[in-house]
């Protein structure tokens, strides 16, 4: 057990330190950075899903006044490496998905670039493509591993025999559609070559990851790439690693006579170029004895990947550790298609997987004649069912009991469809939430004393709305045992010590833990009265307990919905999340993050679905008018609370991360509430009105 850092600044509801600049709009995001004499880039995208560019005519585009260059695969600079097909931009005529970059116009203004891009004429050799995702697709295969590094399949005991003998069996298939991250800030890059050095303002969840990715592609040393991202307008995974547009912007900057290139994807382009969540088909089978104790859990998932680059969402992974059962099986199969490259979207794996599992648990509770919360209580494992390790902290049931009282679970009608108010059927539902603890290696922090009582704390971390500017300052103040006002935090730049990506809800623990280590090292080296200019850089400490515990966060999601008896319209009137996530550094920003995840869960439940037209490989609803994310009026009374807790086995910080757990279980809680309201069980997201009218 690491020695815990005592809380002074931590635990207080400090206002966001970047808040004033953000309510005024003066905090610069990537595209906002002023640069001298910029060139604007607008891309041309493939309009077929598979094949090759047979000819491309740029003459008309080049003739437009103000056009500086038109790049195609025929004249674009060669990359030093092109083994990653997503990054091999304009390296050949091949087309792997509709929407892929096939040309780019550089011009004096955005209007000119956009206009000229429309004048580029293209001919194709069209190959037969396949963009039809079905669970029975004959091309499906088992990936070597799933996202996060876990094995694709697991098996323990004899699931088939246990199901054959079970008193109660639940056997259902659940589906989730494609989801698109849609951060409000489109993916944007400003790229400039200054001699041999590359300078980027990028909208990214990790400046160092951008540098590490680009260096081998362009054959330059990482030190010759500077990336700045002081403010990031959301990412939710889609800015976790650079996508093709960053490569294109850098390439274009090699062809712009030294002028900086500005490139922001349009909202429409984001749907094929910025990653998205795969649709999933989840076959869940649960067996239970007469008392509702699980004897078998089977969660078998089919999902897609792009043919040109594999991404394997770890959808069945939460079923490995949620509930006790002696016989267990999980599997992942990928259908390779000629579609845009899927990637991380908030809580990859846990988010779709907990929809299937937690809807199934609700169904099993009814089949067993048990209250859904009681069913969870009867299946609480003593040890992590998958690894046999003790949980560092598992308070799932406490989350449920705390939330049940507060939410008014006792008002839930045991019989579905039992509450009708003003023409609306009202129901209440619940679901478990979970997310693993990740702490990433590869972090360092530097602390320097200014002589005037102030400490400069540097780490190349990111704030995408997560509150890092605020909570890392709080952690640093306590680590240095100094007032908060004495901390000058610097993040979001590769000139600062290396930091891991803001992903996997790992940021605060990874970066904060490193800052604590650097503060310790600083005090050891310089004492409590350091001379002006004293500085120390330190890496994150080894975790002496690594591998001894199963570390996961848990939560209980409660939802009240109203489904209109005549129209099927569904409204989420109330939601409460109760979470157990270790130490909470800043209650104000933490609540926002939990609520934000739950709100995205409302979107997932109610309306988010990327619609692929398999005839064309096109995401049909590729804008915010047709791909609905929650608007203000979609969100009722949503609140989040948490258990007071410090994880004694999660380093000196004792925090497990909160960015993603809020979306897990949220859609299941809403679907379960909708069943309680109507008696209609929807197993295919989203819960659109027509599904309640059959």
């Amino acid at each position, binding site marked *: 057990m690491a020695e815990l850092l005592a809380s002074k600044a931590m635990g207080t509801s400090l206002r966001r330190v970047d808040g004033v600049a953000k*309510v*005024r709009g003066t905090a610069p995001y990537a595209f906002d950075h002023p640069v001298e004499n910029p060139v604007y880039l607008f891309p041309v995208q493939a309009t077929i899903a598979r094949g090759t560019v047979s000819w491309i005519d740029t003459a008309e585009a080049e003739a437009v006044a103000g056009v500086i260059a038109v790049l195609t695969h025929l004249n674009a600079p060669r990359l030093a490496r092109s083994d990653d097909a997503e990054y091999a931009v304009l390296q050949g005529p091949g087309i792997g998905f509709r929407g892929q970059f096939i040309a780019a116009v550089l011009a004096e203004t955005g209007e000119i670039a956009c206009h000229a891009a429309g004048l580029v004429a293209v001919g194709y050799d069209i190959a037969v493509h396949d963009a039809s995702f079905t669970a029975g697709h004959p091309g499906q295969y088992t990936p070597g591993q799933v996202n996060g590094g876990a094995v694709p399949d697991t098996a323990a005991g004899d699931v088939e025999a246990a199901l054959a003998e079970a008193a109660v069996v639940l056997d259902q298939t659940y589906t989730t559609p494609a989801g698109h991250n849609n951060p*409000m800030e489109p993916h944007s890059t400003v790229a400039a070559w200054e001699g041999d050095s590359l300078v980027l303002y990028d909208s990214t969840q990790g400046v160092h990851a951008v540098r590490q990715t680009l260096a081998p592609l362009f054959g330059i040393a990482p030190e010759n790439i500077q990336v700045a991202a002081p403010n990031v307008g959301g990412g939710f995974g889609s800015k976790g690693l650079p996508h093709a547009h960053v490569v294109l912007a850098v390439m274009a900057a090699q062809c712009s006579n030294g002028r900086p290139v500005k490139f922001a994807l349009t909202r429409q382009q984001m749907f094929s170029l910025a990653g998205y969540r795969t649709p999933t088909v989840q076959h869940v089978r649960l067996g239970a004895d007469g008392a509702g104790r699980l004897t078998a859990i089977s969660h078998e998932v089919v999902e897609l990947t792009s043919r040109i680059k594999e991404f394997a969402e770890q959808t069945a992974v939460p079923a490995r550790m949620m509930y006790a059962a002696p016989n267990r099986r999980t599997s992942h199969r990928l259908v390779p298609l000629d579609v845009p490259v899927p990637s991380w979207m908030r809580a990859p794996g846990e988010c779709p997987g907990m929809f299937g599992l937690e809807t199934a648990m609700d169904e099993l509770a009814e089949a067993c004649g048990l209250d859904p919360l009681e069913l969870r209580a009867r299946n609480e494992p003593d040890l992590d069912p998958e690894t046999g390790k003790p949980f560092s902290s598992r308070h799932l049931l406490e989350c449920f009991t*705390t939330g049940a009282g507060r939410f008014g679970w006792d008002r839930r009608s045991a019989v579905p469809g039992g509450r009708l108010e003003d023409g609306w059927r009202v129901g209440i539902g619940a679901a478990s939430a979970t997310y693993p603890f990740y702490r990433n290696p590869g972090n360092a922090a530097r602390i320097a004393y200014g002589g005037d009582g102030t400490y400069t704390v540097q780490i190349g971390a990111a704030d995408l709305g997560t509150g890092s500017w605020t909570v890392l300052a709080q952690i640093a103040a306590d680590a240095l045992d100094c007032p908060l006002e004495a901390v000058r935090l610097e993040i979001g730049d590769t000139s600062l010590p290396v930091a891991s990506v803001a992903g996997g809800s790992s940021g605060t623990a990874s970066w904060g833990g490193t800052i604590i280590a650097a503060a310790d090292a600083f005090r050891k080296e310089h004492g409590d009265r350091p001379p002006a200019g004293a500085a120390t850089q330190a890496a994150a400490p080894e975790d002496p307990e690594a591998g001894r515990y199963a570390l996961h966060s848990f939560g209980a999601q409660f939802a009240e919905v109203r489904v209109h008896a005549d129209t099927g319209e569904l409204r989420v009137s109330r939601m409460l999340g109760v979470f157990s996530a270790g130490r909470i550094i800043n209650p104000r920003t933490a609540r926002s993050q939990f609520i934000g995840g739950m709100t995205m869960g409302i979107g997932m439940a109610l309306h988010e679905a990327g619609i692929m037209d398999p005839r064309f490989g096109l995401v049909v609803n590729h804008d915010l008018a047709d791909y609905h994310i929650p608007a203000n009026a979609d969100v009722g009374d949503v609140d989040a609370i948490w258990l007071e807790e410090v994880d004694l086995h999660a380093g000196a910080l004792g925090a497990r991360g909160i960015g993603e757990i809020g979306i897990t279980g949220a859609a299941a809680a809403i679907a379960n509430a909708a069943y309680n309201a109507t008696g209609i069980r929807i197993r295919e997201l989203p819960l659109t009105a027509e599904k309640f009218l059959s």
Partner: protein
Amino acid sequence: MDKRISLLVDGEERTLTVDTRTTLLDSLRDRLGVTSPKKGCDHGQCGACTVLLGGRRVNSCLVLAVAHDGAEVVTAAGLGGGGGELHPVQEAFLARDALQCGFCTPGQVCSAVGMLQEAATGQPSHVTADPGRAVELDDAEIRERMSGNLCRCGAYVNIVAAIRDAADPGRTSGTASAGARP
């Protein structure tokens, strides 16, 4: 085709040459370096570009600059007046943590200021029960009237609370600090 126009932006007289295709949003951001309004979609679908044009909220990505020669534009950067002080709506956003990444926030703030004015002058919304009477700005009204401003971070609950506070500072119940606990 280019045209010379002038705009009064956040209290400052600005003269510029614009392509007749240039939106007000791009004029502000790319020509004048006023980057407070953001571009989330460029199609009137997200509200991130909301500014006050002649005192009314508009999606500046849907407005051609050339059509508004001489107009007054107020962005979130200019809402609070020249001395750097914040507008009460901005103060309320901070107090309620009505933002996360902050990208939608300048648009939310401008939209809220415009919306409060609309409600004060009795303009009904889709959820107004009796359009003939003064608007009572309850949560349902605020949600409806703010639904043109998307927030992917999901700050709506706090945005509504902030606007409720700003609309009627005396009425507010509950504390401004977050983090209710069991």
